[in-house]
């Protein structure tokens, strides 16, 4: 069973219905480490040594965050800058993250329709996530399509419950080493038939 590290970053988690539903559902699962960055580093002073150690102990890295201005919240960017060190994560001698799996789990206020060339936001979510994809690649990790909960403003509690269940199932799939090929085909991991709520 693969070990999963969820790097969760949300500057106002206490006000987020969607993220509360998601986190609540998976935080106690076996083999899952929930690492709440804003709780751990309220002063943005990241303990790089400890973070590297944490990465060493896990096989799947999930960047779980709301999409703010088409990117991640600032502390997660800080984490990327500080932890993914030259000659450790990347660079001629940097291979610490080699062959680990990496993906984004995001929540967006805007609906899926807004994120396309005709929509308000002009680009798709996957396009906006390019920097993360490339970051993972440069560190030698396999990057999966995102799991996205979109249009959160209009979701009711039952919808959120569904998403939470899907997230939970996704975690199981990732732990059970589902073939990556199967995963890579999707635009969103939400679309995987295996996640369909019965």
């Amino acid at each position, binding site marked *: 069973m693969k070990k999963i590290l969820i790097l969760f970053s949300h500057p106002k988690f206490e006000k987020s219905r969607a993220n509360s539903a998601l986190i609540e559902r998976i935080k106690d699962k076996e083999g899952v480490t929930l690492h709440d960055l804003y709780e751990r580093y309220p*002063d943005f*002073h990241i*303990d*790089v040594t400890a973070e590297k150690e944490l990465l060493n102990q896990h096989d799947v890295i999930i960047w779980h965050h709301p999409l703010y201005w088409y990117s991640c919240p600032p502390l997660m960017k800080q984490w990327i*800058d500080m932890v993914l*060190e*030259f000659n450790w994560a990347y*660079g*001629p001698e940097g291979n610490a993250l080699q062959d680990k799996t990496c993906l984004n789990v995001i929540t967006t206020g805007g609906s899926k329709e807004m994120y396309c060339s005709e929509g308000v936001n002009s680009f798709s979510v996957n396009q906006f996530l390019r920097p993360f994809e490339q970051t993972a690649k440069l560190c030698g990790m396999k990057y999966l399509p995102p799991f996205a909960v979109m249009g959160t403003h209009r979701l009711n509690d039952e919808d959120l419950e569904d998403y939470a269940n899907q997230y939970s199932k996704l975690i199981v799939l990732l732990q059970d080493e589902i073939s990556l090929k199967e995963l890579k085909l999707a635009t969103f991991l939400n679309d995987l038939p295996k996640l369909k709520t019965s």
Partner: protein
Amino acid sequence: MTGSILFEAIVFLAGAIICVSIAKQLGLSSVIGYLLAGVLIGPYVLGFIGNEGDDILHFAEFGVVMMLFLIGLEIEPKNFWNMRKSIVGMGGIQVGGTMLLSFILFTLLGLEWKVALVISMAVALSSTAIAMQTIKEKGLMNTTFGASSFSILLFQDIIVIFMLGFIPLLSNTDGNASTVDKGDHTNLLNNLPMGLQTLAIILSVVLIIVAGKYLIVPMLRKVAKTGVRELLIASAFLIVFGISFLMEFVGLSPALGAFLGGVVLSNSEFKHELESTLEPFKNLLLGLFFMAVGASINFIVIANSPLTIGGILIAIIVLKAVVLFITGHIFKLKLDQKLLLTFSLAQIGEFAFVLLSFAFGLNILSQEEMDMMLVITALSMSLTPIVGIINERFILPKIGTKESVKRPMDHIAKSQKIILVGFGHFGSTIGRFLRSHGVEATILDHDSNRVDFLRKMGFEVYYGDATRLDLLESAGIADAKIIICATNKIEVSKTISKIVKEKYPHVELMIRTKNRYDAYELLNLGNENIYRESLETSLTLAKDVLSKMGFRKYTINRQVRNFIKYDEDSLRRLASERKYDDNYIFKAKKELEQQEKFLNEDFKRGIVEYDNHWDSEYIRNALNSMPEE
């Protein structure tokens, strides 16, 4: 006789060390320890010191002299003026009321009016030495009670001057001097007619004031110029002894002269220097004074008429207590502050010794009358701490912890109770911040006026000594999640920590400390959450210094975070590494050694060097040093 002097010194010192340690261990004030030591080594128990008791008392009076000199130093005429209302008001009511009532009492007992008047003067005074010592020890100087006590005591110290000036006027004959305990001193006054005596007293007071301004200060300036530190110590002693001598020469109380001298010098630039020089001597000499009081309790006089003495003693204490209580009431003190005031000042003071002997020397008092009053004075002093304990342990708890109105709290506060001990500058900031988040801490504080104000503001406040288990329990420690010690008194925090760990181990402790050493002690008691009050502030200042020198703020900010983490780690390491003994002599040396060690470590560790984030130069160099493929 040097051998015997040495032996006596040993007896005194050993007695003090043993008894005061025991008293402190039992949580009593040091005054009780000293008094007890005095009784033990005195002529009636172990008999180590016999008839020299009087000489010792005379020598020990230097403790009182120094204390009054230091009190005088504290009082700048300006402050004095600001406090005039409470000094004259409270002091006047207290002295006037007590004198009146005790005059009536002693007249009824069948004493001659002159005798009754002198005794009532003596009775009206309280013991500055005992009261101030106790107030300082308990850290109550800044409470309303502390200020009130100070005012009353100050008024008494001043009024004594007039009393001493007035007593000769009562004299029946031209006083036959030198039966006073200060036998072989030349006493100018005795050879003068009465009116002139009073004049001489006033003159000598004026002389001190003038000499202080035009003689002592210029002398100190010259001494300071030499830069020889021990000369200044010598000067401090010379001032105190000189004034004492002058006062005795004209037959006045040296303590008063010293007090005046202190006031005169309180505006000079040497104020703090003199204070720090005399402070340690003062405490030891005061201890000696208390021991001498203990040793001078004449058990034979007591044995001869135990009932009379006991009766008068109790009557006087009750009488003084009533007047003090009424005084407090007139000045609108809270009930508990009134009680503290009542019980702290209900004894007869050390000036009574002076007044009584003085009056005896002038043939106003008979030998028996004087002996009896001296015994009563000493006994009343000895009773003070005991009465204080009764008040603290049995009376105050009953009135202090009034159940305050429970206010509706939001769910966070309701499910997770917070207790905040101490609401001074530090604690109140914590309290305000918590409250702005809807978290209502239950506050414990020992200043009842503050407590009252906080209750008006709608806080749930308990008044009293937070080291008492029953108070903690009534504040709801059993259901508390966290108890915050925001007091800067390490002893209080340590006691609370011990109680909580023993009885309520589920409650989390969060403790403010003044410095590293207090932090070590608390860490070694098994506490985790220690907050050194100066760490963040000093680094914030250092950060701004570096910024002004051209360092980038963000980088320095991160280094400060690193430094704090590293300093916290080393704090924990050192706390377990060795038991720090707070021995004053080694303290400074240890401190320096430790600072040196830290600085070395900081340097070796190179806090700044290893920080390569966002450092393009570092990456370029690393890439360039790669071997060509």
